């Protein structure tokens, strides 16, 4: 087990949503390369508190890459330089002594900065509330095996459902678009037999809720590259397809009435 002797951190500090922010420079010494990026920040915070300064605010919880709470734009990359890895799973092995590391919060109109590196990602929840579910009140469900799901379909749903709602896609997208997140959530439910009844209503409601808050997708593909769960761009195509047919079915329904 070895150490990184010397690191220079440029960290974004911002007292509140509307207050102006600035970079603050800190030097950290003798960081174990077994430590995670957040553990490195922990050590810095310990020192700041000891010096009577305020600890740097950042979101985190599980530190296992599954809860989606951690964030951070590290050296211009959402979740840092390592592919398919959340910030909490990013280990200092990925850096070398002497590096200068720049840490910014994720920036998007829909993700206002709360303080320092912490942002508010609740816009994602509004998208789910609009239709990101299968209506299945408790108690009424038939026996689980009455709905056979072909393995490939179950796997496809699972691939999309792996999304941890971290927001890296929005942070990384040059347009601040949430198409990968929304696409993943729609794909998860729309490929499953259980999800067919609400398929089009779901796509329509979720896309239009997304539309009110985020940028538009011009297919840069940056989101998928930054996604810690490597959600594929296909989910975006699927969403665009279902939304299109949603609008057309929807029109037919109206004309029938």
């Amino acid at each position, binding site marked *: 087990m070895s150490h990184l002797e010397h690191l220079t951190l*440029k960290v*974004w500090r911002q007292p509140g949503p509307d207050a102006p922010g600035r*970079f603050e420079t800190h030097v950290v010494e003798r960081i174990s390369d077994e430590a995670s990026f957040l553990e490195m920040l922990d050590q810095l915070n310990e020192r700041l508190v000891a010096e009577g300064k305020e600890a740097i605010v950042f979101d985190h919880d599980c530190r296992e890459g599954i809860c989606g709470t951690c964030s951070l*734009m590290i*050296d*211009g*990359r959402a979740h840092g*330089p390592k*592919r398919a890895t959340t910030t909490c799973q990013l280990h200092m092995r990925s850096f070398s002594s002497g590096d200068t590391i*720049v840490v*910014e919060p994720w*920036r*998007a*109109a*829909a993700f206002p900065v709360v303080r320092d590196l912490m942002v508010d990602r*609740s816009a994602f*929840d*509004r998208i789910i*509330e*609009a*239709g990101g579910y299968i209506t299945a009140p408790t108690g009424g469900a038939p026996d689980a095996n009455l709905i056979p799901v072909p393995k490939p379909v179950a796997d496809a749903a699972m691939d999309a459902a792996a999304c941890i709602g971290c927001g890296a896609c929005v942070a990384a997208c*040059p*347009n*601040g*678009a949430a198409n990968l997140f929304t696409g993943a959530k729609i794909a998860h439910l729309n490929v499953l037999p259980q999800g067919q009844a609400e398929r089009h209503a779901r796509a329509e*409601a979720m*896309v*239009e*809720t997304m*539309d009110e808050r*985020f*940028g*538009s*997708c*011009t*297919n*840069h*593909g*940056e989101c*998928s*590259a*930054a996604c810690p769960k490597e959600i594929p*761009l*296909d989910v*975006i*195509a*699927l*969403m*665009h*397809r*279902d*939304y*299109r047919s949603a*609008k057309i079915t929807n*029109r037919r329904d109206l004309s029938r009435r």
Partner: protein
Amino acid sequence: MSVAAPDRPSGAAARAVTGTARGPRRRRAFLLDLYATSVGKKYAMAVTGIAMMGFVLAHMVGNLKMYLGAAELDHYAEFLRMLAYPLAPKDAVLWIARVALLGAVALHVHAAWSLTVLNRRARPVRYQTARDYEEASLASRSMRWSGVVVLAFIVWHVADLTLGVTNTIGADGTFVKEEVYDNVVRSLGRWPVALFYVVANLLLGLHLRHGAWSIFQSLGWSSPRFNPWRRAFAGGFAAVIVVGNVSFPVAVTLGIVG
């Protein structure tokens, strides 16, 4: 000092979230309703993009006739005007095509414009340090600029070869539209013009390299069968257009044509 269903929290419970699901929102007529959303605008961009791709390809192929000599090219232009004659009056089909194209460009540009505005609003505070892009390409990030230049090119180009405003006066002192071959040669004979053509078409190629892939995603055409080929198609299409179109000014400058 007590209530039947206590729900007033002391202090401001401003942050309580509830009833967020959108009620039936006012809907416009079908297509307008679709176009009102960014996803709908992308459909429009894709469809108009495809139309324009079709034109550019056909146009390039048609122009290849100039290598067969003046007669061939002029006759080809004549042929375009005579499409479906006598069923339809002279120029009719051409005009329909022109109007359609004009509409496509207009719609394409409007969508591009409004999406650009939307995207700027989506990130009012930009990142304060350089981004380190992994996937986003020069092509994908320069769509707006390449597009604008192409637009400028089209305007100038039409004024030049169709309307003749910017073209040098013909042999007998006036711009003769029918002398397509001579017009081209005269126009491209001027090196700044030739250079402009080259640059514009390189940018068009860049625009198409991303655009011709982008259409698949925008329209939701995704299938394991052809997905691996989508980028290849875009690259190939862009290459064909660039090679064909750039060859003309080069050929004229080198005197191969003319």
